[in-house]
């Protein structure tokens, strides 16, 4: 009897130790499971998945220092600048690091992010973000489309700390707090979520962030030719745009950025009475940029070499459609080669294989878009969405 009690007493510490160990293991497993699930849900499911997210995250999947030209800006950029076509025609790699409605206050972060991950021969900055009115600056969403999709970095953190009110910062570091309420509206984003997961698994995206709408500009307004006297006028910028632009130019100078490696541009638009003031603000921006010693090229004036037809090459006055995208990309690519001597970076076999794949996918994308353009079906957003890609893939071998 005594022996058995002693035995029990001796065994107790072991049992206790085992119990503690099991508890610790269970608690750690629980924490790990929660962290992993939360991160997955935050990263791919409840993250406001859309073409912006797919594009910006896709940029970070590109291997370091493999992109020759990066174009920063807003929607004009991913509608009019096609990396697949650049690579096919001129052999250099490129990427549109752009989001819908992106304002000039995003310029610095986007520029820093590009330089942090790539060493492009040229960074193009489309100036639309500096034309916007003050209200665009106040819209949280214009900031979030960029910030939410940037991996944690110094520039991301700086942007959050300087642009966001203290009590809201946590939602930028942990976007799930903001987006978890969208669980009942995932029907619209599920295609983008799947695509982002596929991109992540594959290690790159196929269309490099381009997007278009399958329609033509309806020509409901009178187009103002670039020879018109009004097109020479300048109009003051909105306060916030002006400040953000000046701040960015000052930053570029303070960083000693080589003027040969940065180019400010204005992508082609259709100019009508409605957006004439925007054109005129573009003129003001051109002056400001040149006065600060940087180069600026406007592709807005009608140029027979680009040969854009407002009726056939735009889906609205602000954006080119697939026809315009091809014409302008070809023109811009050649322009960059001629004026900036952009030559292809030497890629490894693996990297080359990745970029080679973008060519048939871009071709299939063009075929699909062209067919959709002339189809009677309602205008459709076409980008690297899983469901759209299923349709695009059907054109791969034709």
């Amino acid at each position, binding site marked *: 009897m005594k022996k058995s009690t002693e035995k029990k007493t001796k065994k107790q510490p072991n049992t206790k130790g085992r119990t503690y160990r099991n*508890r610790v293991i*269970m608690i750690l*497993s*629980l924490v790990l*499971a*929660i962290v992993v*699930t*939360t991160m997955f*849900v935050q990263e791919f499911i*409840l993250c406001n998945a859309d073409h912006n997210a797919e594009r910006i995250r896709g940029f970070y999947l590109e291997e370091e220092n493999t992109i020759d030209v990066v174009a920063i800006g807003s929607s004009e950029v991913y509608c009019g600048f096609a990396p697949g076509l650049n690579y096919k025609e001129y052999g250099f790699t490129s990427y549109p690091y752009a989001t819908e409605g992106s304002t000039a206050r995003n310029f610095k972060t986007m520029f820093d992010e590009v330089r942090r991950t790539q060493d492009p021969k040229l960074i193009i900055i489309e100036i639309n973000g500096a034309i916007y009115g003050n209200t665009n600056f106040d819209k949280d969403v214009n900031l979030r489309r960029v910030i939410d999709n940037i991996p944690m970095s110094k520039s991301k953190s700086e942007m959050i700390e300087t642009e966001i009110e203290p*009590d*809201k910062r*946590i*939602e930028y570091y942990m976007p*799930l*707090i*903001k987006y*978890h*309420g969208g*669980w*009942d*509206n995932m029907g619209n984003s599920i295609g983008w979520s799947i695509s982002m997961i596929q991109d992540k698994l594959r290690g790159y995206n196929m269309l490099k962030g381009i997007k278009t709408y399958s329609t033509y500009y309806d020509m409901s307004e009178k187009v103002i030719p670039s020879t018109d006297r009004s097109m020479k006028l300048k109009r003051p910028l909105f306060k916030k745009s002006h400040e953000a632009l000046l701040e960015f130019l000052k930053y570029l100078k303070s960083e000693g950025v080589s003027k040969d490696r940065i180019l400010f541009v204005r992508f082609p638009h259709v100019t009508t009475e409605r957006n004439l003031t925007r054109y005129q603000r573009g003129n003001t921006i051109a002056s400001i940029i040149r006065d600060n010693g940087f180069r600026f090229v406007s592709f807005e004036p009608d140029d027979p070499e680009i040969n854009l037809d407002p009726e056939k090459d735009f889906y609205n006055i602000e954006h080119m459609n697939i026809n315009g995208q091809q014409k302008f990309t070809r023109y811009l690519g050649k322009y960059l080669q001629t004026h900036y001597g952009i030559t292809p970076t030497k890629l490894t076999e693996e990297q080359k294989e990745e970029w080679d794949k973008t060519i048939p996918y871009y071709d299939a994308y063009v075929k699909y878009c062209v067919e959709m353009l002339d189809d009677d079906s309602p205008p459709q957003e076409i980008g690297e969405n899983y469901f759209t890609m299923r349709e695009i893939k059907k054109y791969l071998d034709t």
Partner: protein
Amino acid sequence: MSYTSIKFLIFVTITVLVYFLFPKKFKEYKWTVLLVASYVFYIFAGIQYIGFILFTTTSTFLGALWMDKMSRSSKNYLKEHKGDLSRDEKKKYKERTKRNKKLVLALILVLNFGVLAFLKYAKVLFMGGVGDLLVVLGISFYTFQSMGYLIDIYRDTVPAQRNYFKFALFVSFFPQIVQGPIGIYSSLAEQLYQPHDFDYDRFRHGFMLILWGLVKKMAIADNAYIAIRSVTDHYQAYGGTTLLFTVVLYAFQLYMDFSGGIDISRGVAQIFGIDMMENFRRPYFSKDISEYWRRWHISLGNWFKTYLFYPLAMSNAFLTVSKNIKKSKFGSTAAGAHIAKVLPTSFASFVVFFMVGVWHGANWKYVAFGVYNGAIIMLAVLMKPVFEAILKKLHINPDCAPYKGFRIIRTFILILVGYVFDVAPSFEESMMTFRLIFTDQNLKVGWGEISELGLSKYALIYLAICVVFIFIVSVIQERHATTTIRSLLDKKPAIIRWGAVYLAIMVILIFGVYGSGFNAADFVYAQF
């Protein structure tokens, strides 16, 4: 600092760490951690409230000591003069002591309930002339709790607390300050002062209860509140079908909100080794309104029962009325005898529920709510023989399952009628709601309106799933009334136990209402 905020989570974590890491040498002072935490919590809620809670604490503490001194002096005097005093003299002396104690009790009660009443009703009584008054956090709950203690002292059922700071902890204990449960001194105080050691199982159970409360509040109640708020913000714009839907949804939302909050409170207290009383016992399974009030906000019901109902029912006035009926001609009939027997209790119930209604707020709709509940209970007691006779005539066995089911549904409908007063912004609008519910039913129009209440089709489906889930959980709880779901889970394999915790956390993270995109509701009962 809301119970559902990250701040509160951090606050509780720090308090737990300080409490359990408190030096063993000074363990008899462990309760000071809870006191400091409670006052920090209260100051976080607003420094301007602190005067009110200090006033209640101090006045009650001193009043209790004063009455206790009277009782002890009286006892000592009677002991010392045991042989000197006649029976009548002793009786008179006791009565004088009681009268003096009563005066002190009345003074403190009037002062404290006066402050409460002033803050609740002054604006209405003085036609808004006093401006916006403070909504003092938890004032109802700590006032009721303190006054309960004071009455207990008056009745000599508990010894007076001689340590002011210990008493301050009893009044301000942070997990219960916002919305109860209203603690009873005899069962709560000692637990607060004991130096509890860390207990893993208690911690785990407390944590699980907090999680369950958060699921109910954040992932269920606050989602339902989105639709309810849409209706109450534009109350006149909706038809009968939508209003009926809102009242049903409100029944669910209120239960999830209030019981969720209480679960969080009880869970936090449990981590510290303190068992707070249960405040809900599946109230919608009640078979009559009296039972409902024994299952809903149990601590408030207990308070009213102990400190208002019994004194009223046993009061000379009520007993005299009962005796007079018994002696009358009517009293010699069967009905008369029954009424004479139950009138004191039924009328006391009516008064209690009238007071419950008044307590809810300065609005006629709350008075109507109280009168409605009181009237139903009073009628049910008075008419009991009639109902029994009808059952007998219809050959219905009152213990059979279908009849029990019928009673549950009937009671739930009666509860819903009461909730109309709660949902409607005013008494007039509650009357309008009744009219529209009966005269304006149109499913197509109703569905159109419901689908625009801020909840998507999927969110409505989610809430419907929640209703079914809560129903299943409630049935399990009802069948295992002596234990808890947590204890039942303890018997399951680890993967199920930990899986449940994982699931609860993920449900809160994904379906919970939080962040700046939402305007999450405060706890409904925090406003009372």
